[in-house]
C-alpha cells in the first residue's frame, strides 16, 4: 500500500498542470494541439485512419486513462483494486450499455453501435458485439438476464409502458451507484467517505437533470414521478417529483442548499452543460479536501485516478474544440483543469 501511495504521489506530479492545459487549449490548430501534447507524458499520438480526428483522439485518451487504472490496480491491495475496477470499468460499461440500448431503440446497425463504444473489454456484461447484434431491446435485455445487470432486464415492462428507454437508463445509473456503494462498504470507514460522496453527488445531479428533462418532454404516456427515482441521496425524492411536475426551478434549486445550488445554478440560463462542468469541479474539490485531511492512505490513489479522468475529459473537449477551430476563451469555461487554482 505504501508503494502505491508513493507511486500515486509521483504520478499526480506527472499530470498536466492548469497552466499546461491552458497552453494546450490555446493551440491554434489540432496539429499544434498534438505537437504540444507530444511534449507531455502523452508523447506522440497517431490518429486512426478514416475516423474523425476528435473521435480518434477521444479513444486515445480513454485508452491512456484505462492504462493508468491498470497500473494502479496492479499495485494496490486487492480490496482497493476491486473497488477501483468496479468504480471505473463499471462506469464505462454502463456508458457502453447505455449506447447499445439507445442504438437498439433507434434501430442503428451493430456496426454503428460498436463504433461508438468506449474501447474496453466487457467487465461484467456479455460481449459487446453479441449485445449490439441483438435483434431488438427485448432480446438485448434477455442477454442481460442472470448478469450483474439483471435489474435492468427487469425494467422491460416500464420500457414497454412508456415506450422510452429512460427507465433502463435510470436503472443502469442506479445499479452503478448501488454496486459502488456496496463495494465501498468493504473498505475501512475513513476510506469510504470520499468515494461515497462522489457517487452520491453524481447520482443526485443526474437524477435532477433527468427530472428537468422529463418536465420538458411531451410524452403521450404520463410518467409517474414515483416510478422514476429508485435511489436518491442529497436531493429528496419530493423535490425531484416537484421538478417533474413543472415546479419553479429556481425555487427548487435554492431549496437544495450547497453544493447543489451552486452546481445547478447554470440551469437558470439554460446552460445545462455547465452543470456537468460544475459537478466535475466539485468532485475535484472533494478529492482535494480529502487529500488535505489525509494524504497518505487511499486518498492520493483515488485522487490520481479522479484527476486523470478530469484530465481525459478536458483533453477530449479541447481536441474537439481545436478540430472545430474554436479559440481558448470560448470553451474554457467548460473545462475543469485550467480553472482550478
Amino acid at each position, binding site marked *: 500500500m505504501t508503494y502505491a501511495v508513493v507511486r500515486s504521489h509521483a504520478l499526480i506530479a506527472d499530470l498536466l498542470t492548469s497552466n499546461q492545459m491552458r497552453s494546450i487549449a490555446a493551440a491554434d490548430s489540432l496539429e499544434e494541439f498534438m505537437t504540444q501534447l507530444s511534449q507531455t507524458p502523452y508523447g506522440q499520438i497517431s490518429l486512426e485512419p478514416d475516423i474523425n480526428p476528435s473521435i480518434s483522439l477521444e479513444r486515445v485518451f480513454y485508452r491512456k486513462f484505462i492504462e493508468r487504472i491498470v497500473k494502479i490496480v496492479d499495485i494496490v491491495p486487492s480490496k482497493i483494486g476491486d473497488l477501483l475496477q468496479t468504480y471505473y470499468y463499471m462506469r464505462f460499461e454502463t456508458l457502453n450499455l447505455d449506447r447499445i440500448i439507445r442504438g437498439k431503440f433507434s434501430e442503428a446497425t451493430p456496426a454503428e453501435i460498436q463504433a461508438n463504444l468506449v474501447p474496453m473489454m466487457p467487465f461484467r456484461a456479455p460481449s459487446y458485439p453479441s449485445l449490439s447484434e441483438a435483434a431488438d431491446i427485448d432480446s438485448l435485455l434477455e442477454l442481460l438476464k442472470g448478469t450483474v445487470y439483471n435489474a435492468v432486464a427487469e425494467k422491460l415492462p416500464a420500457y414497454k409502458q412508456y415506450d422510452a428507454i429512460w427507465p433502463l437508463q435510470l436503472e443502469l445509473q442506479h445499479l452503478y451507484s448501488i454496486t459502488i456503494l456496496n463495494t465501498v462498504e468493504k473498505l475501512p470507514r475513513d476510506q469510504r467517505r470520499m468515494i461515497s460522496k462522489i457517487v452520491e453527488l453524481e447520482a443526485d445531479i443526474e437524477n435532477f437533470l433527468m427530472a428537468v428533462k422529463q418536465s420538458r418532454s411531451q410524452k403521450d404516456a404520463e410518467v409517474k414521478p414515483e416510478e422514476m427515482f429508485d435511489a436518491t441521496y442529497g436531493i429528496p425524492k419530493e423535490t425531484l417529483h416537484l421538478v417533474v411536475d413543472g415546479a419553479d426551478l429556481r425555487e427548487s434549486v435554492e431549496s437544495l442548499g450547497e453544493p447543489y445550488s451552486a452546481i445547478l445554478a447554470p440551469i437558470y440560463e439554460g446552460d*445545462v452543460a455547465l452543470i456537468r462542468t460544475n459537478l466535475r469541479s466539485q468532485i475535484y474539490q472533494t478529492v482535494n479536501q480529502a487529500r488535505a485531511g489525509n494524504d497518505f492512505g487511499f486518498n492520493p490513489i483515488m485522487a490520481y485516478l479522479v484527476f486523470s479522468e478530469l484530465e481525459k475529459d478536458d483533453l477530449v473537449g479541447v481536441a*474537439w474544440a481545436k478540430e472545430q477551430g474554436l479559440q481558448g476563451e470560448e470553451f474554457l469555461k467548460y473545462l475543469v483543469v485550467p480553472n482550478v487554482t
Partner: protein
Amino acid sequence: MSSTSGVQPTKGYLMEMQRRIVFIERGTEFLKLKRDHLAKELSESIEVLRGRRRLLLESLGEAYKAVQAAYLSLGPTEVESQADSIRSTLDIDLLPKSIMGVQYPYIKILRRPKVEGELDITLSYASDKVFSILEEIIRLAEFESRVERIADELGRTNRKVNALENTVIPDMKAIIKFIQDKLDEEQMEDLVRIKLIGGALASEK
C-alpha cells in the same frame, strides 16, 4: 451597317413598320412598369431579408453554442451516438411559385426530423434550438432565392427596356423616316414627271 440598308421603301412596308412601332412602344411602356414594380419589390425584399438574416444569425449563434456546449460536455463519441438516434430525417419537396412572371422555388416540408431515442438533457436543449430554427432556415433560403430571381429578372427587364429605348425604337423610327423620305421623293419625282409630260402634251397641241 446602317439600319436602313436593305429596307424596301414601299408604302406597305411603311404601314407595317408604323403598326410595329406602336406595338413596341406599348410593350416598352409595359416593361417599364414591370421594371419599376420589380425594383420596388426588390428594395422592399432586401430590407426584409436583412432583418430576417440578422435574426436567424442570432438564433443560429445560440443553437451553435448549445451544440458546442453539448460536445464539450459529453464528448464527440457520445454526441454522435445520441445523434444516431435521430432516424427520421428532414424530407422536403420543391414546388414552383411565381411573382410577376418570375418563378422561384417554394419548399414544402413533408417530414420533420424526429428524435426517436432518448437524448441527454444537454443535447436535448441543443436539438430543441436547432429544430426551432430549421423551418426559418428553409423559409429564408426560399426568400433569398426569390430575391435573387427578382434581381435577375430586374436586370433582364432593364436591359430589354434600354435596348428598346436606345436601339430598336430609334432604328425603327429611322427606317420609317427613311421610307417616308423615299416615298416623298418618289411622289415629288412623279409630280415633276407628270408636270413635264403635261407641259410637253400642251406644247404639242
